[in-house]
């Protein structure tokens, strides 16, 4: 087969898929307009990020999107309460892995194979939930006007060095679910023995505990506590406002995956499908990355130094009993 023929074949296949996707888009949009011309989305993704995507989606399709934003637990509570009452108002759900699996097990999602999902790497596709569209990555973030980069910790183990005592803030692992997962998953990047020792030593330094990851990052921006265990993306989000923040390049970093799913009793199912198609499409992924998110598309990175070098490691998920057991275990270490 000549190179020219191969090239033509690739172009033809690409055109076929593109036209198929577009055809589906156009049909869906038409159907969505007959349903009322809108989609209702519940999620825990930041309002500004979703706002930018909705704006582009509306421009392209003319469909309206109502977005209800809350923390992952609250989003799940509301969706499941509505669903159990037989009156779910939402079409699309966007949140992280653990609540998505709980809702999946409750049977509230429809299986929807979006044509846009084909562009994700295979290892980022969950057989039941579809593509993991973004990863939220937690690591060590510090205020570089207080801690000079040369004096900053170089590894997780460095955090227990006495010189950082009283300077580290983290969410309470006995209360904040993502942090419970983070502490419990350290063995995936450190090995069990090292991780167990590190967790014991970390607890012994009595880090300042706060409610969640954002207050931890904010204490770094204000300089009240110069080092935090928090989301790495805050370096970009606060950095673009001028906050002197940086993160420690750990190589492998733990994080959580986020998914999007369609309600199986969606009041506007075509609108919901059209939104999902766009939401995990290239254009939307680029918008999301520009807002500081780590999306699962090859070659698309947030504007954060060395973002492409970060190796994402999925944190472990627990069920209700698993979380309770871990929280109890960490209470003995962190709250004594």
């Amino acid at each position, binding site marked *: 087969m000549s190179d020219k023929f191969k090239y033509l074949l690739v172009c033809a296949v690409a055109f076929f898929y593109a036209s198929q996707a577009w055809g589906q888009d156009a049909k869906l949009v038409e159907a969505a307009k007959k349903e009322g011309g809108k989609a*209702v989305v519940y999620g825990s993704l*930041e*309002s*500004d990020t979703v706002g930018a995507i909705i704006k582009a989606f509306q421009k392209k399709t003319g469909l309206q999107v*109502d*977005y*209800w*934003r*809350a*923390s992952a*637990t*609250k989003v*799940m*509570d*509301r969706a*499941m*309460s*509505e669903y*159990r*009452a*037989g*009156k779910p*108002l939402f079409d699309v759900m966007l949140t992280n892995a*653990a*609540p998505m699996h*709980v809702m999946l097990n409750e049977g509230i999602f429809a299986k929807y194979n979006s044509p846009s999902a084909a562009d994700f790497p295979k290892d980022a596709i969950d057989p039941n939930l579809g593509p993991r569209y973004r990863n939220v990555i937690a690591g060590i973030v510090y205020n570089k006007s207080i801690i000079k980069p040369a004096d900053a910790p170089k590894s997780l183990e460095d955090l227990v060095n006495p010189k950082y005592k009283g300077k580290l*803030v983290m969410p*309470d692992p*006995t*209360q*904040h*679910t993502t942090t419970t997962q983070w502490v419990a998953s350290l063995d995936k990047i450190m090995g069990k023995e090292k991780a167990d020792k590190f967790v014991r030593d970390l607890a012994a330094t*009595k880090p*300042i*505990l*706060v*409610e969640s990851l*954002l*207050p931890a*990052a*904010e204490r770094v*921006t*204000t*300089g*009240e*506590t110069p080092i935090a265990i928090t989301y790495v993306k*805050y370096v970009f*989000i*606060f950095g673009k*406002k*001028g*906050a002197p923040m940086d993160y420690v390049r750990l190589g492998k970093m733990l994080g959580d995956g986020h998914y999007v799913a369609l309600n199986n009793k969606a009041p506007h199912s075509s609108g919901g499908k059209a939104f999902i198609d766009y939401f995990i499409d290239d254009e939307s992924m680029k918008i999301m990355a520009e807002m500081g998110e780590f999306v699962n598309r090859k070659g698309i990175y947030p504007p954060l130094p060395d973002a492409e070098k970060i190796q994402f490691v999925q944190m472990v998920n627990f069920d*209700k009993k698993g*979380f*309770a057991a871990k*929280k109890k275990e960490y209470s003995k270490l962190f*709250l004594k």
Partner: protein
Amino acid sequence: MNHKAIAIGRLPAVWSLDRAAAFLSQPVNWVFLGVGGIIAFLSLYPSFFLLYGSFTDAPLGVPGHFTLNNYIQAYSDPEAYRLILTSFIFGIGASGLSVILALTLAWITIRTNAPFRKLFELTAIVPNIMPPILISISWVLLLNPNNGLINAILMQWFGLESGLFNIYSIPGLIFVEGLILTPLSFLIIAAAMKSMDPALEESAKTLGSGEFGVATRITFPLMRPAILAAGTLNFVRAVESFDTPAIIALPARIEVFTTKIWREALGSFPTNHNLAATYGVGILVIALVFVYLYRRFTSQVESFSTVTGKGFRPHQIDLGGCRILASAVAFILLALMVILPFMVLLLMSVLPYYHVPTWETWKNLTLDNFRYIADNDRVYRAFGNSLFLAIVGASLCMLLASLTSYITVRTKIAARGLLEGLVFIPWAFPGTALALGLLWAYVDFPIPVYATIWIIMIAYVTRFLPYGLRAVSSTIIQIHRELEEASIVCGAGFLATFRRILIPMMRPGVVAGWIILATIFMREFSASLFLYSPGSEPLGPLLYFLYLDGMRGRVAAIGLVISLISIILIAIAQRLSRWETK
């Protein structure tokens, strides 16, 4: 005329058709049935789901089995009782501090001739407008031991090695919560103080008491119902508050009851509705004990009647040379309650991100956060929704509160105590737990209120009616029955007496209650968050989401605009109240 003549509405011991007809012939009994029916529905319908939830092993909406395991889990842990004790210390400290500050401020602004007293009176309410979480954050930025602004200044001035104050302590927690609670105490106490009869004070003066003696031996004892009302409300409010403990207690490793509820029930994954409801029942019992104590304290209503038919505007005390000192004290209190936290908010609103100000800071000041407000349709819509909820919701709530208060304080209807208990039931559940009950109660309601602004209105009236009731009850207790008796002797019926005598007399309490409610409704979020649909989003959830996204500057800017609007609302309410009096 003895009191039996107006002891209307006593329920007959044995019902017969004749007696039922006699009962229904009294207009006040119709009012009782109407108000009782509305309140019973508002209160019991969502509470039923939560009480049911505490005795079942399945989440709301899923059929489960009867169990006592939730109670065993919640209350068999000895740690829970230690935390309840810590919460009591916190609650008593914060409510006590709020009452002391409010009494001082109310006395200076209402009873003395201190300069600028009207300005102080207006601004004392301002902190009620701000979300408590923002006030807590402001104080952390002012008093944290590492780089709190006040500590940093003191360290620089006096060459200290470490900060003088540590906000992360029980006193710090009580101090901040006390400041947050002071406006509510102030409104209740000030309303009662405005309605005082000067005769008793004048008698004491005639008998040789000085101004200080009159204040301590006559004025403050007469304020007892209002002080108890404010103390009771604020105690429960402090015990069930999570905002301040989350910001201050958690980093200080101080555990209170609400942080335990959060960790084990509301903040657990997935949320344990059953355990949250069970803890809620515990707080309900504590709240009902306090309501009972309050009713015991105020049972001898006549002894607190200070507004009589002989003229009821208290005289002003001439402080002479101490006028300036009184203003200085009021100014210091307001600096703590309003000026310092607001300066931090103002700074936050003009900074791209919050940091300890340096000379470089001036170069980075920005109005972007205010531009966001001006350019954003969502913000406009949220302001419109919240204004509607504040004005209509507070008015409906005060109408219901006035009628309820009249029935519970003035009539001898046998079930009046029950009515008051009903009002307090939804209030005693933690905000988020109640919101879940409301969501479940109204999601399948035959009248389609779910996903409209009306369900938020119902939630506000259900949850905050006790605030209105307390404000108006502490005033109605002080109104002597002779005024109603005179009206009845002159041939007026219940409705005419209520409209022409009691409503004008209760006006200070009604206006105070309206202001409390309108300012809370302008920024409420825990119930709104679960009940709003995207088109009916009020300001509270909007602020919450911006805060959740780390947009403190926008939150501060919107907070400042909310404060401005609320001050205008308060000024209009006070002006209308005075205009009607004239």
